[in-house]
């Protein structure tokens, strides 16, 4: 058999809503992440464009320097010693060098330069870029200058006119004034907000926009992938380097995008998404808790009452307690009064309960009446059949032989059966009266005394000793129908008398006692009747409708007693008498007012 996993509705609802909150948070997060990535991509593209602009400026600067140097190279050597070279602001240092890269003349020199007449650039890092080709200029990669170890770019151009002295070719070697580029980088960085670095292939930073002071950047991982590469940590900050190569300079233009801003944006979005998801979850939890209190609470109470109702109807009708209607939850706050549906459920259920209750009462009454009628019919039928038989016997005997007739005996038996019919009819009348019980404050002592007096003659004729106790009080008042109650007590005393009738005369004992008692809930009076007979032959705890310990008994008497007590909100306890050894019957009736013991 396939088992179905069950769960409560509110738990399922909460799980679904929390899942929705998580999914919503995830979707929000994912969406934000994609948007941020695109934003970051755009940001990086802007930085890339910035780097390209710097690249363009550098190329133009190099081209301008090259053109100026070429123009200068067209001048005669004598004029180069004049003021013309000094006017070229694009170069900070200018030399005439020979084919061995040795300085033959210093035309212009920056302050603090360590290059001197006769200084050789041979073996230096710029030597590979210097050549002795005719009429063609060349530009070195950016590197540390031999003058002052500062970033330098050298441009060389052969002189157009041969040198006069020895006829050997000479070259103009100029070191670009990079203060222009430095200033440009500073300005550019200030406007763009991103530091710009000029980094050689070996990772040394040649130029950087102020105020960033970084000696070297590890760009080895970016060798094959220009553009944004993995983040760098410089001066305690995280940067995203955007690399643009400048093959003419042998360097990379690195635009540093501060990741702090991107991280802040990401963190802000993450925080926002997490907050939204959390708020949704909180709202769902609070809502579920409130729903559980105001909606599911009453529903749960309703379910409990339905279960209780079922249990009630599984019990015998006589032991049912009156149904309480749906709890309004006022004490627990789970009234659900805010919800129309709950109010409708409550009112409908209450109405349903009332209908069921009334119908149950009617059904019980009808059942009781039907059973009683059937039993009475059966009871009446028996003595009538006996009477009929006796009459036939009397007729037969009177017709055949009158001398042998035991007429008195037959008449006595007829009388007895007639009395039996009479008794059944009395009980029937009483049962019919039970339909409407009229309760009045009644002194139970007088009712018991009346019953004893009523049976006094019978008891004496059966030689039964009746011992009464507790009948001297006059304060034991009960709400009772005196007639019904007296009938019930008479029945019980008669039963006791019948029970001891087979005992020897000296053992025919019946005891009656009246005891006030205070139970946990109310003051009560207990009427106990004990006898010295054989006791109950059936299980006293069995509350089947009709039982009897007598051979010819119908159990109708005990049923009458039960019915009477039910009509009086009392109870009946059956057991064995510890004092007399026979049956013990206890009638418990609520007192009108507590009575001291």
């Amino acid at each position, binding site marked *: 058999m396939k088992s179905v996993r069950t769960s409560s509705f509110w738990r399922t609802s909460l799980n679904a809503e929390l899942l929705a909150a998580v999914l919503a948070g995830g979707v929000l997060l994912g969406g934000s992440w994609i948007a941020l990535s695109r934003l970051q991509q755009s940001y990086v593209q802007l930085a890339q464009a910035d780097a390209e602009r710097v690249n363009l400026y550098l190329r133009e600067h190099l081209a301008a320097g090259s053109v100026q140097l070429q123009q200068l190279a067209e001048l005669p050597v004598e004029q180069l010693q004049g003021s013309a070279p000094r006017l070229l602001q694009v170069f900070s240092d200018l030399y005439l060098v020979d084919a061995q890269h040795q300085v033959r003349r210093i035309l212009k020199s920056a302050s*603090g330069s360590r290059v001197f007449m006769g200084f050789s650039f041979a073996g230096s890092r710029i030597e590979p870029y210097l050549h002795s080709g005719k009429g063609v200029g060349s530009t070195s990669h950016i590197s540390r200058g031999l003058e002052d170890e500062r970033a330098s770019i050298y441009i060389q151009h052969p002189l157009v006119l041969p040198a006069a002295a020895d006829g050997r070719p000479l070259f103009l070697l100029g070191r670009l004034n990079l203060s222009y580029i430095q200033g440009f980088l500073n300005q550019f960085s200030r406007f763009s907000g991103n530091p710009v670095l000029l980094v050689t292939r070996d990772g040394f930073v040649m130029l950087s926009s102020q105020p960033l002071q970084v000696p070297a950047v590890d760009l080895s991982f970016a060798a094959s992938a220009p553009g944004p590469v993995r983040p760098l940590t410089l001066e305690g900050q995280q940067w995203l380097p955007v690399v643009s190569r400048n093959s003419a300079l042998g360097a990379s233009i690195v635009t540093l995008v501060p990741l702090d801003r991107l991280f802040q944006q990401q963190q802000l979005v993450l925080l926002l998404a997490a907050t939204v998801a959390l708020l949704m979850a909180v709202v769902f939890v609070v809502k579920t808790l409130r729903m559980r209190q105001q909606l599911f609470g009453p529903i749960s109470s309703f379910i409990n009452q339905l279960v209780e109702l079922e249990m009630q109807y599984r019990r015998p009708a006589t032991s049912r307690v009156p149904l309480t209607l749906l709890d309004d939850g006022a004490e627990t706050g789970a009234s659900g009064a805010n919800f129309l549906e709950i109010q409708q459920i409550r009112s409908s259920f209450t109405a349903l309960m009332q209908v069921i209750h009334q119908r149950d009462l009617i059904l019980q009454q009808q059942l009781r009446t039907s059973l009683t009628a059937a039993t009475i019919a059966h009871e009446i039928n028996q003595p009538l059949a006996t009477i009929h038989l006796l009459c036939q016997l009397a007729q037969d005997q009177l017709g055949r032989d009158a001398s042998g007739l035991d007429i008195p005996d037959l008449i006595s038996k007829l009388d007895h059966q007639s009395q039996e019919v009479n008794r059944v009819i009395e009980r029937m009348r009483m049962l019919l009266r039970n339909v409407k019980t009229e309760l009045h404050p009644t002194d139970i002592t007088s009712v018991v005394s009346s019953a004893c007096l009523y049976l006094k003659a019978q008891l004496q004729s059966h030689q039964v000793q009746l011992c009464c106790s507790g009948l001297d009080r006059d304060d034991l008042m009960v709400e009772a129908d005196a007639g019904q109650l007296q009938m019930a007590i008479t029945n019980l005393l008669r039963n006791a008398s019948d029970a001891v009738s087979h005992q020897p005369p000296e053992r025919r004992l019946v005891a009656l006692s009246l005891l006030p008692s205070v139970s946990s809930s109310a003051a009560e009076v207990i009427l106990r009747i004990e006898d010295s007979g054989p006791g109950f032959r059936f299980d006293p705890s069995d509350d089947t409708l009709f039982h009897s310990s007598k051979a010819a008994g119908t159990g109708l008497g005990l049923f009458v007693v039960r019915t009477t007590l039910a009509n009086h909100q009392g109870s009946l306890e059956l057991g064995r008498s510890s004092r007399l050894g026979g049956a013990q019957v206890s009638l418990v009736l609520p007192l009108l007012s507590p009575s001291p013991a």
Partner: protein
Amino acid sequence: MLGLAGLLLGLIVWQGLRRSAVVVAVGVDLPLVPGAAINPSDRHTADLYLEEHPRSRLRLVNHFNDEVAASGPASIAKLKRQGVRFFITTQSSTLAVPSLREFADGSALAINVSAVSNRLSGHDDFFFRVVPDVTQEQQAIARRLDGLPGRRLLVLQDISNPGYTEPAFAVLQAELSRSGRWQMVKHRLSVPDFDPRRDQHLLTGRYDAVYLLAGTFLPMIGNVAQLLYTQHPNVPILLTPWANSPAILESAGPAVRSIQIASNFRTREQDLRIDRYLRRFERRFGYTPYAMALRTRQAFEILDAAVRSGATTPMEVKRYLLRQPQHSTSFGVVRFDADGDVAGAYQFLKPRWQTLP
């Protein structure tokens, strides 16, 4: 019983985790060369070491040198306050001598790769060196000079790093005075502020040998050497181990033909281990580091071995360093004496361009 076993197991696991979580921060100097681009050779050496030893528990913290001597101890004290207990320093003697007190009480331990002042020698402290002190170094240079022909010696002493050059000159002078062969002329100049026009007169005269007593890998040593070469084209120019740098040779031009550099290492052509390492370095970073970076590598190997042995405090590392008779490194063994100093032999390299260290 079961609970006790669980507790013991938990304790062992916790100890294991605690042990694996120990991080040793190492201060690495990034020399600030005055007036020059900064050379990140040491930092890159550290990076390469950790890349090649991903399971190492060493973690790097930058420690920047400064030109001002007083800033040396302050920068170390600052890092100590941040919890750094181990330093691999490239401080020159001028910075290292005042910093010595920071390593006196065992709150931190340093392995220095460049300070050779004999004022750092003979102290039972937490300052270790993987380089011989200036006495051994200058004795070796004096012996080399004694092996050269001639009588007239020009010594140019750099005054920008007196912590090194003053005791070095004192030792050299004492050693040379024993033979009494050399007539020594000494000029003092600030190499970082070298101006060929202004300082040219210091180089004039007739000399049989020139000794440029300068260190800290100042690139302008090459410019001075080239000017010396133009003045004295056939005279040997001796340089200290602290001028063993490709950048210096680039500036030296044709003076490379006359240069002899004192070194504890052989050239890369002579030592395949060095060549292989430099090839890895060049492949990774695109340039050749100066010679001192080899010592930085040695210092990392020694410190990492100490940490691997379980030493995590300066005292434990000190015990380890002194207990081992010798420490194997990629470029040979290192033996510390009781004071954390080392002895070493010198040779004199006649480099060609781009062949050093």
